[in-house]
Each structure stands twice: as C-alpha cells, then as structure tokens.
C-alpha cells in the first residue's frame, strides 16, 4: 500500500503545518507516555538483564580448563550437587501445593463480608512483613525438642518423645508455609473476589448445592488464577535459602540449589560454578512455570463476571 492510496495520509502530507510529535507517534501506534518507562527499562537493563547475561556467559567459562560445558557436566556428574535439585523439589513442591490448596477454602470463606475480616487479614499478612529470618528464628525455638510445640504434645500424651521437626526438610517446609501461605491466600482472595457471586446464585437456582456450585462454577473460573498463584508460590519456595540454612540441614536433605550456589560462590570461590547452578535453577523454574501455564491455557481464562 502506497501513501497516495490513502486519502488521510496524503492529506496529512499536503497539510501546511507540521503536525506535533505526539500525533506523528500516535500514527505509528506509539503513545508518548511510553517514554516514561524509559528509566525503568534502563534500570532493568543495567541491574537485571546485564547481570543475567553475564552470569550465563560466566557459567560457560569454568575456572579449570574443562571446556565450555565443563561446569554443567560437573554439576550433573556430582551426586551431591545433582541431588540439590531433588532436595529443592522435595521442599518447594509440597510447600507450594499446600499453600495454594489451603488458600482456596480460606479465600472462599473470606470472600464475603465476614466479621473480623480485617483482623484475620492482618494476622495473615504479618508473616510476610516479618521476613523469613525472624520467622525461622522463632520456629527454631518453638519447634525445638524443648520448644512449646513438642512440650504441649508430650504433655497431652500424644507423643512419647519430641518430634524431630528441625534441621530437616520439615522445618524448612513449615517455614515456607508460614511465610508463603499469606501470599498465596491474598492472591487467591483477589482472584476469587473477581468472580461475580451472582453466578453461584444462578447455579443454586438451577439446583446446584454449595459443593457443586464451587466445583462447576467457582473452581473452573478460579483455575487460571490458581495457576498463577502456584507459579509464584513455587518460585518463592524454590529459591529458599535462609530457612534452609537455619531450620534445615544444609549439608544433607536441605542442600537446596540456593545453598549449593551460595556455598560454591562464597566457600569455594568458584563463581562460574555458582553461576552454573543459578542458571540450572532458573531453567528448572522456567520449565515448571511453562508447564503450569501450558496447562492453564487449556482452561477458560476470560471474564469472570457472567457477562461477556
């Protein structure tokens, strides 16, 4: 298509005045407000994209002359290092799944006008603001052999000797639930609040009891949101580090990818190898997110208001 074919364009060229930059940009589909994102783009470029690329490149430059893929072959050849993938999954996956599943019923209940809603929300949000280190510190005392948790259970006669909840995967998982659950809950709540309750009323008048309303109407509409919630919860749990070192057994079953990378970097001073571990962790996360979002696309993900 040439310009002379479109009357508007030819008129614009013939016009005596030069049109403003804003109009000329708009003709190309560019809103000049986009320029406002320039500083942020620059920031991301300098502090995220460049370091990421640097890290990836670094991972292919091992300290020892073992070839470009030397670090990768070393990682997958070493059972201890390789095992950190399994460890991470064994901690992050149950924690993320639990957080999402537990968030659903609570979000369903908290969605309407519940008395004391603000108090409950505040209680739930506190763990996020406290930070993982403080939570881990608290758990260290609470869940220890002489902590309240075991003492109460023993006093109640439910257990004969203290449960071993610290310095293994349980401790890490508990800490991930405490810090990750509020996050999953708030996200789920916002998704479920976007679903028009009239649709459940409609299902009710059509003969669906509360459970079938949830199963046939609410849940299908919530699935896309749950997928996102799971992805974010999983990513949070996958990069676990403070609670793994404090509550877990960082040289054993809690030797997760983040611990492996940190140890490699700051105890062995092998930055390329640490980069390799980080790259592997990122790749795994992307794979999981890709898989979840792939599944999500098979569900309905449009409007949730009952009106197109």
């Amino acid at each position, binding site marked *: 298509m040439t310009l002379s074919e479109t009357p508007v364009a030819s008129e614009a060229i013939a016009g005596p005045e030069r049109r403003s930059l804003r109009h000329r940009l708009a003709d190309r589909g560019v809103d000049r407000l986009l320029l406002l994102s320039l500083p942020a783009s620059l920031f991301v470029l300098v502090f995220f994209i460049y370091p990421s690329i640097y890290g990836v490149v670094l991972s292919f430059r091992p300290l020892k002359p073992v070839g470009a893929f030397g670090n990768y072959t070393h990682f997958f050849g070493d059972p201890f290092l390789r095992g950190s993938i399994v460890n991470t999954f064994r901690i992050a996956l149950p924690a993320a799944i639990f957080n999402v599943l537990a968030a659903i019923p609570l979000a369903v209940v908290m969605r309407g006008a519940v008395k004391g809603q603000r108090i409950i929300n505040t209680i739930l949000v506190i763990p996020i603001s406290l930070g993982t280190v403080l939570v881990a510190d608290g758990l260290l005392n609470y869940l220890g052999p002489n902590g309240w948790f075991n003492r109460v259970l023993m006093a109640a006669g439910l257990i004969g000797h203290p449960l071993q909840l610290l310095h293994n995967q349980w401790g890490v998982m508990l800490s991930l639930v405490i810090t990750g659950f509020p996050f999953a809950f708030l996200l789920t709540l916002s998704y479920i609040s976007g679903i028009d309750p009239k649709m459940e009323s409609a299902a009710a008048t059509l003969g669906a009891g509360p459970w079938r309303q949830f199963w046939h109407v609410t849940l299908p509409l919530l699935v896309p949101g749950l997928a996102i919630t799971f992805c974010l919860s999983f990513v949070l749990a996958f990069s676990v580090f403070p609670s793994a070192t404090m509550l877990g057994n960082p040289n054993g079953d809690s030797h997760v990818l983040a611990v492996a990378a940190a140890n490699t970097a700051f105890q062995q001073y092998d930055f390329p190898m640490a980069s390799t571990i980080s790259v592997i962790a990122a790749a795994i996360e992307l794979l999981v997110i890709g898989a979840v979002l792939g599944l999500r696309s098979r569900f309905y993900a449009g409007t949730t208001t*009952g009106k197109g």
Partner: protein
Amino acid sequence: MNDRFSQLRLEGVSRAYGSTVALANMNLTVGNGEFVALLGPSGCGKTTALNCLAGLLPLTSGTITMDDRRIDLLPPERRGFGMVFQNYALFPHLSVYRNVAFGLQMRKVRRAEVRRRVSATLELVQLADHAGKRPGQLSGGQQQRVAIARAVVVEPQLVLMDEPLSNLDAKLRRDMRVELRRLHRELGLTTIYVTHDQEEALSLVDRLVVLRDGQIQQVGSPEEVYRRPANAFVAGFMGYRNMLPMTATPAEAAGGELRLSGLGLSLTGLGHVQGPVIAAIRPDDIDLGERDGNCIEGVVEEAQFEGREYELLVRTAAETVLHVRTHRHTTLGERVRLGIARDRIMVYPAGPDESPEQDSAEPLPVQAP
C-alpha cells in the same frame, strides 16, 4: 419435576437489613400460569422480594407456601425455580449449550433427554446456531436469551426475572418483550417479573404489584393500575405527570361530584374526598378545548414534537405549568384552552405520605404558585 402448583402464597413476608426494612409485611397470592410484575422505583424492595422467593435471601419474618408446602426455609437449589438475573450471570467458561444444560445436569437428567430438551429450548429462543459459542461471543440480546433458556429449560414451577431487559437498548427491549410474551404463552410458566419500567410492565404482564419503600401500593391488572391508580404515588409512577395540590369540596349535586379549586383553577372531578387533595392528571387526558365544563386557559411555553404527538408545557395565568399531549400543532406563545374529562381527574387525599414521588430525571410537574 413439573408438578403444577395452583397457588403461591406470600404471607407477611418481611426482610430487613439491620434497621433498614427493605420489604415490609408483603402479602401476595399468585396463581398458576400467571405473569406478575413487581413494579416500583429503585429501592422499593422489588428485587429483595424476588431474592426472597428464589431463596437467595432468608426472610426476616413471614412464610412462603406453594399450595400447602412451605418453601421459604428451603435453600435455593431445592426450590426448583428458574431465575433470570439482571446481568444474566451466565457461566462464562461454558458453551451456550452447557449453560442451558446446567440445570438439567444438576437434576441428573439422562444425557439423551438433556440433548433433546436443550436443543428444543435453544430453538425456542432462536439460538440453535450458537450452541457451541461461549457467552462472551454473543451480543447482549443473545446472552439475554441464553439466560432465559437456561432458566426455563428445567420447566420450573416458577420463573423469576430480575429486570432482564434493563441492559438492552430500546429497540431490542421492545423485541424481547414480544419474545417474553410469546415464551410465556407457549410454555405457560408462572412468571414473576421485576422491573422499574412501567411501560414494560404494562405491556408484558397479567397483573401488576406496585411497591414503594417495601410496601405494596396496589395490585391489579395493567388497565386498572393505569386507569385507576390507588394513590398519588402510584399515579405519579404511572405517568400522571400533573399532580396538582388543590382543595376539594363536594358539589351540591349527588353522584360524587367534586369541586376542585386552587392554583387559580377551578375544576370539576369525581370522588368522595374533602379538603386538601392531589389532583392527578395524565398529559394525554388533557384535550385542547373545553371538556365537561372544565376549562383552563394558558400559554404554550414549550412544544416538543414526539412523532405521533406533541408534548406541550402550558403555563396558566396563576403560573401553574401543565404537561399536555396533543395531536394538534401549536406555536410557542399561543393561547390555548384546555379541558379534562371529569372522570380522568384522579383525586387523592393530600398527606405527607401521599405526596407524589417523581423520578429524579423528570422535572417537577407543578410549580407552586
């Protein structure tokens, strides 16, 4: 499913939200196959009444019975009523077919039977070609029809409709009215229809229930409510735009003749009230020229051409502005003589509670002298 009831009775049905009473002591009996409208301005309690019927809101007091069966304690899913929501509340993740099939599936109807009934109902609402689409791919009018199909496919004992046409444009609304009447005729389903649009209610239903502040004002056929509003509120709501505060004195002659005076006017009407009254007159009931000895002189202040008729504002010598509808062309500033048949003046006792409540969109009908 379709065991026909003969009477639906609401007795003393009330619903309060905290200290606000949305519905007060409503008594109503609906016969099988009836098409009833709950009509009133927003906040009059009509939607509350509908939600109470559907089981979506518990009653504060009162009972709802179907013949001898008490239903007000049943959850909505066990009442078996079909409901059409104002914004349709279609399931956006399901196809049109599955939206309509939903109620049948909940009732565990066999698959072949589901297919037959859904197809038949989609045929009825003329959406057979759209069965595979999602609600989001349909126009407003089509979504509306899906909502209706979804409610009637289960052949409910009672269909509840909550302002189902309010989201449609004027032309579509007219078409859908015809559709709704046809559906009601063909299916014979007892229908309770909530609307704030008096014209819609008049054209659709067999019986009108006019509500205000949670209380029934009048129950009657469209003709009755239109011609003989029970009180000044109903009159104002039914388009009696001239609400004249006047004083009534019985005439010497028998037969309920009334002398109405005030606002510099002197009219003859019919009725048995005395003292301060509201004389309610429809714009269409005012003719040019004297009528029944009633004659008002005034000047045409505003004339609006509305296709078939002109809508006039006529200012009398005592500065009262009257709404008049007429076929005759008049020019601005023209002196006219207006007449009203005496039986077309509705006379209601004036009281704080009986004061006309106009739609805020409309101008006040009368400027006090």
